[in-house]
């Protein structure tokens, strides 16, 4: 018993010591204009910049106090769902991955911002607007558009006398060459079911002339058959590749070619010190080159305690100085056309790739059953691409599931 008591005492003392050494983590004092709780999902380096170029100037300008909260997109949906159900919403503003918007709207977790449409700057590219609406209602404001670019380890390509692929045919040839010569696939796609695979399959479908909501379309069938042909030449790790792991696969040279969001450049080149990485927008299919428009948008939770202040913060986030600062400091593509500016020299090739890909970017269909569509796309990928089931009857079966999801809403 004495041993147990001693352990408890030691733990309590260590806990107390940590408390003493730690900086203040209790709720900060209220600003003159109130306290705004803002949720974002960022890396530590990104938080430092956001605190410096967004939060501090806003606090100075308005006298408000901003409490930043780190949360991943999927966790935000769960957290907000619980808060709204409890009638105890404590979050005033969110910036959310635009691949995760449907659950927020379907569950009624965000305010309808249609009356505030005028807040969107006139300089916002028209291509960003459809992604903000569901059923004709505006639920989100633009903030940070994004698009996946293609990373290629140029020394390995040079060693095999290859060029990074620009078309489906070249992609297949590159994949086959690496797999044949090295006995190991070196092309990786983000094959984790759900959102990662949803982006990959959507891009292939558009490139093939198909439609993620219509899998029996000739273009969709063509895209699945192409992926089926490509799959044996992919790096085996592709089934665990998503936005974070794919950086490690490229940095460890497990794969030589892969697509990821632009932050990957910061991780692979700056953090992991890889110098052999080239970037470009990607490859085209028979119907052209297309990319899923990603990034983050601004939302106001239903029942947010300080909605007016939150709207003011949203306006601030969309302002030209903030967008320019985020571009210069984090290489985040701006949501307004008048905010393009200089980026660091090492980032320039990557940012050029981003600009190229953004020109070919498309918002995914903003339907509240998109989560179910992503599941269907992942299941269809498993059956047709991985398990090599015939594309036409298999896709017909999955199209029926999409129709069911549409009818249920």
């Amino acid at each position, binding site marked *: *018993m004495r*041993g*147990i008591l*001693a*352990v*408890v005492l030691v*733990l*309590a003392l*260590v*806990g*107390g010591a*940590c*408390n003493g*050494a*730690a*900086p203040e*983590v209790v*709720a900060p004092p209220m600003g003159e204009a109130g306290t705004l*709780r803002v949720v974002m*999902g*960022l*890396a*530590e380096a990104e938080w430092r910049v956001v605190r410096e170029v967004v939060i501090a100037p806003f606090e100075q300008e308005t006298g408000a106090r901003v*409490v930043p*909260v*780190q*949360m*991943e997109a999927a*966790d935000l949906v*769960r*957290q907000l*769902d*619980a*808060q709204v*159900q*409890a*009638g*105890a919403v*404590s*979050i005033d503003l969110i910036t959310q991955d635009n691949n995760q918007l449907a659950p927020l709207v379907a569950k009624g977790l965000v305010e309808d911002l249609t009356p505030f449409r005028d807040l969107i700057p006139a300089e916002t590219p028209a291509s960003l607007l459809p992604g903000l609406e569901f059923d004709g209602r505006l639920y989100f404001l633009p903030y940070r558009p994004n698009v996946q670019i293609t990373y290629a380890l140029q020394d390995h390509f040079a060693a095999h006398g290859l060029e990074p692929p620009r078309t489906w045919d070249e992609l297949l040839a590159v994949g086959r060459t690496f797999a044949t010569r090295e006995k190991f696939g070196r092309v990786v796609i983000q094959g984790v079911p759900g959102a990662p695979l949803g982006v990959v399959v959507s891009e292939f479908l558009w490139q093939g002339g198909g439609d993620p909501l219509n899998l029996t379309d000739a273009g969709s069938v063509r895209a699945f058959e192409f992926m089926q042909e490509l799959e044996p030449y992919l790096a085996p790790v592709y089934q665990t590749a998503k936005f*974070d792991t794919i950086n*490690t696969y490229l*940095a*460890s*040279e*497990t794969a030589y070619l892969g697509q990821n969001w632009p932050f990957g450049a910061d*991780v692979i080149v700056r*953090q*992991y*010190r*890889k110098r052999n990485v080239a970037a470009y927008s990607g490859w085209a299919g028979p119907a052209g080159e297309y990319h899923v428009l990603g990034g983050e948008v601004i939302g106001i939770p239903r029942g947010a305690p300080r909605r007016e202040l939150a709207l003011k913060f949203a306006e601030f986030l969309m302002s030209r100085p903030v967008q320019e600062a985020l571009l210069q400091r984090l290489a985040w593509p701006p949501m307004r056309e008048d905010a393009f500016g200089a980026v660091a020299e090492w980032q320039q090739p990557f940012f050029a790739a981003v600009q190229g890909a953004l020109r070919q970017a498309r918002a995914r269909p903003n339907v509240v059953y998109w989560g179910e569509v992503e599941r269907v796309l992942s299941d269809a990928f498993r059956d047709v691409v991985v398990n090599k089931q015939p594309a036409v009857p298999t896709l017909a079966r999955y199209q029926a599931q999409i129709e069911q999801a549409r009818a249920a809403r």
Partner: protein
Amino acid sequence: VRAAVSPGTVGFYALAVLFAGMALLPLLLLLKVSLSGPEDVLVQHPAFGVYHPTLEHWQAVLKPEVIGPPLRKSLVVATGTAVLAVLIATPAAYVIARLPRGWRYGVVLALLFTRMFPEVIIATPIAVTFLRAGLIDTDIGLILAHLIRNLPFVAWILVGTFEVIPRDLEEASWVDGNGRLGTLWSVVLPLAAPGIAVAAIFAWLDSWNDLLYAIYLLLAERTLPLMTYYFANRGSVFDVATFSVVLTVPVLVLTLLLQRYIRAGTLGGAVKG
């Protein structure tokens, strides 16, 4: 002439080393990554050794403002959960253990029944209730949430512990003039100490490793698993490895300190009806 070391002993130690190696290998790999530069890890065939050692990952993690708040939170919550779970479950388990066999069996089944629901399903309603009670970002909120799943388990372990303590000892203590409470304190609890230690370790470890309730109930603060999760999502493999080692070390220390209480047979009674 008898051999100094029998083949059985050699086999035993060989197996012990093998299993210890299997258990320690993941931790050693984490430690290696946390002490390595990218040149040792981010290559096609990473070496097992550390050829480009660096402390930069540890220096980044061990900054007081990085490690302090989550370490404090995790220690306070895990210790609070373990202490409360034992304090509440010990008397309850003693009473259950002394119930008639049929009743006892029913109560133990009822305790286990509460563990049958998938936590992902019940987490939202629990979080809603806690949010209504204003228990967000509080130590006590997280401790209470962890008690929900730990109390039945701790009570179940302790019922088994008390069951195997002979009643004759208690009766002898009564004959010597000890009352019920005196007997419980001076006779039963010392004998039950190994079981209580095991139950406390389980409760502490479960709370220490929890991520689900921390995601729901913490906004401005973080626990160590939340920090590890954050770096897994947003950081490098070096950050994740370093934080994982930090997360694991207290578990090893605690287990080593209390291992003498974990003896064969401690849980044996727990499966008796």
